[in-house]
């Protein structure tokens, strides 16, 4: 499409739909649900961009990707250059193209959004990242000469990987310490294969390793070495991106029955340990026939769709508010519904009942109605007295969020945390109360999104670079 189109003509171009696996088919396998745009589709979608001078989409993006810039490169069919354009500010385009809530960030502010549907920025991001990787066009970026400064990154989730990528490019020596045996953090243990294939996360980590980042997996900071010991080992600055890894439970009777998992455990078994492929992999997982997942976020959607793929006859989302208040992405709710997930809204469990082996058999629930808005601005659910009823369940997954893991705060004197245990940082620099120690991602914000964590890693890297060059003498 070489000819120049007028904005009105661009608005007439049909918005592209991503092909995906049929819901009936995919609810039985762990393969990725959407296939990605074809090249032809990507070219059509790219033509929809008005390339508006104000580019509100860029401001909508937590890491300020030059969105019109990369879309113009797609029009020129220089997909690898488009991918590199994204990577100037976002190290993880193949990941973000899949799991970012674009509809609330860059796409919602697109001028086309209201009347025509926004440009599918997320789809295009995914397209160029996949194109680059699948065609072996990934090139290592230029790396500044060694500065002689050493950085330790604790945690290899989106915040840590992003900080590592930025700092290595600036010439610092970077080591990532990961507690689990594979890098990627929540991208590996939390998000299922059908939403984010693990080969993609591995490719992102391999890319960092090729740039010179050293990965030390299976190393639990706070147990093996403390933050202070990392300084003694010669690291000049430290970034803490350990995530929100302490699962919340309901605190109701019967919660320790067998067959009641935290979402972390359920998803880690299936994703990291590949229990869905038992007995080829050794880690077992309970296959429920009637599965209730408690919660309404993306994690709950991931868990309930996993349960379906593991053979559930009935897979329920049990959520105490209404669909409108659900924190999950619309796309995830839509996918879940297509696959046959049943939503039990305005419902809260109050008790779990088990058999003599201590396995969960049923869940007593109470119906709720929405009252006045609470502190979060969402209408508060209020129990309807006498509305109790019992659901038959043989597997329950509690996906109501995480608190912050105290392993590092507890072993780091002088590291200030708020009352929820989240590390307190300066919002601009991500500097903690300890000199040379920065933090970002869920350990600072509590459970949030991949891209916000990546954005925090980015901010921290910028400030750490300044600190390393100005205050650390070599």
């Amino acid at each position, binding site marked *: 499409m070489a000819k120049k189109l007028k904005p009105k003509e661009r608005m007439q171009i049909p918005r592209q739909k991503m092909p995906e696996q049929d819901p009936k088919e995919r609810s039985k396998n762990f393969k990725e649900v959407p296939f990605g745009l074809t090249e032809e589709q990507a070219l059509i979608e790219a033509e929809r961009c008005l390339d508006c001078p104000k580019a509100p989409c860029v401001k909508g993006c937590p890491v300020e990707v030059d969105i019109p810039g990369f879309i113009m490169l797609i029009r020129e069919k220089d997909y690898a250059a488009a991918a590199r354009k994204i990577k100037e500010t976002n190290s993880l385009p193949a990941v973000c193209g899949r799991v970012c809530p674009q509809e609330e960030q860059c796409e919602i502010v697109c001028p086309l959004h209201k009347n025509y549907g926004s440009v599918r920025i997320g789809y295009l991001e995914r397209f160029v990242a996949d194109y680059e990787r699948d065609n072996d066009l990934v090139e290592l970026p230029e790396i500044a000469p060694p500065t002689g400064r050493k950085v330790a990154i604790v945690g290899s989730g989106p915040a840590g990987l992003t900080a590592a990528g930025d700092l290595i490019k600036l010439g610092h020596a970077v080591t990532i310490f990961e*507690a689990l045996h594979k890098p990627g953090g929540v991208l590996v243990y939390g998000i299922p294969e059908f939403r984010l294939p693990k080969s993609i996360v591995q490719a992102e980590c391999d890319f960092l390793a090729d740039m010179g980042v050293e990965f030390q997996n299976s190393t639990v900071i706070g*147990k093996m070495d403390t933050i202070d010991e990392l300084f003694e080992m010669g690291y000049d600055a430290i970034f803490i991106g350990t995530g929100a890894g302490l699962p919340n439970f309901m605190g109701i009777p019967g919660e320790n029955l*067998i*067959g009641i998992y*935290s979402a*972390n*455990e359920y998803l880690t078994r299936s994703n990291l340990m*590949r229990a869905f492929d038992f007995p080829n992999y050794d880690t077992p997982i309970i296959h429920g026939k009637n599965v209730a997942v408690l919660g309404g976020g993306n994690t709950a959607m991931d868990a309930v769709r996993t349960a379906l793929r593991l053979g559930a006859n009935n897979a329920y989302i049990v959520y105490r508010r209404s669909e409108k208040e659900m924190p999950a992405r619309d796309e995830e709710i839509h996918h879940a519904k297509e696959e046959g997930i049943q939503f039990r809204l305005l419902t809260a469990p109050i008790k779990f009942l088990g058999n003599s*082996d201590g396995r969960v058999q049923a869940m007593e629930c109470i119906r709720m109605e929405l009252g006045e808005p609470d502190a979060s601005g969402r209408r508060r659910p209020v129990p309807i007295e006498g509305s109790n009823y019992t659901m038959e369940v043989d597997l329950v997954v509690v996906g109501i969020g995480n608190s912050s893991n105290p392993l590092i705060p507890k072993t780091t004197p002088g590291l200030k945390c708020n009352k929820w245990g989240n590390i307190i940082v300066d919002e601009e620099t991500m500097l903690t109360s300890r000199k040379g120690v920065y933090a970002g991602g869920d350990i600072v914000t509590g459970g949030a999104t991949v891209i916000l964590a990546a954005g925090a890693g980015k901010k921290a890297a910028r400030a750490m670079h300044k600190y390393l060059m100005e205050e650390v003498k070599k």
Partner: protein
Amino acid sequence: MPKVLDNVQMSDLIWKMKVEVPRLVAKAKAGQFVILRVNEEGERVPMSIAGLDKEIGALTIVYQVVGKTSALMTTVPAGGELSDCIGPLGMPSHVENWGTACVVGGGIGIAPVYPIAQAYKEAGNKLITIMGSRSKELLFYEEEHKAVADELYVCTDDGSYGHHGFVSDVLKKLLDDGVKIGMIMAIGPVPMMRVVSNLTKSYEVPTWVSLNPLMIDGTGMCGGCRVSIGGETKFACVDGPDFDGHQVDFDLLTKRMNAYHEQEREAMKRFLAAPGCRLAKDVEKFSYPD
């Protein structure tokens, strides 16, 4: 990858493995545990520390062949490697001078109680050690315990060696004889820890037990290792593994440890059926209770 220095059969189904992990060993203390993964497809299994050789940076674990993963562990030769050995995890055992301290090791628990016995002794306690197993062939570490303990009692359930009876019988006799014990640490099968805890509760002697429930990450992230202590839910991986034996809900612990009974049996069957499996001849030993 962590190198296996030694992996020897000590008795029927009990093996001892020495793993070279110098950084971990430098930090580890008595009462902590590690998580092992044998290979890429392997589970993450928690293992109590049964010895720390700080000089060569090696860790000893003693394990019993009960299922696929422990069976697989026996196949790693000296000089071979594990995929991962992660730790030290959990809180170290609480150690102080109580005057007289007593450690009780039952079955496989004879091993992890040994470094704690050493620590109690080093803290200046008079140390009483009681160790026991089903029969003489299953006993090990007697020399090690003898070298540390001021008084050592050995017993077997079938009377084939030492005192005929359970570790709890010996402990009861000591308490009945009026021996003043400031602290007891009991490690072994859940029924043994339960019996010891029930006993010492009536004598009002503080008693620690070390719990080893199923877990994945070992850092507080999954909550699979939930235990109930005095009615409150705790995570054994970060809050334990040592807990007040008088507060532990042993019923819940027993049930939760059987959560994957069927899958474990299936995995073991498959493993034993593989061509050339050396353990296949012992298949009847692995008959899981139905």
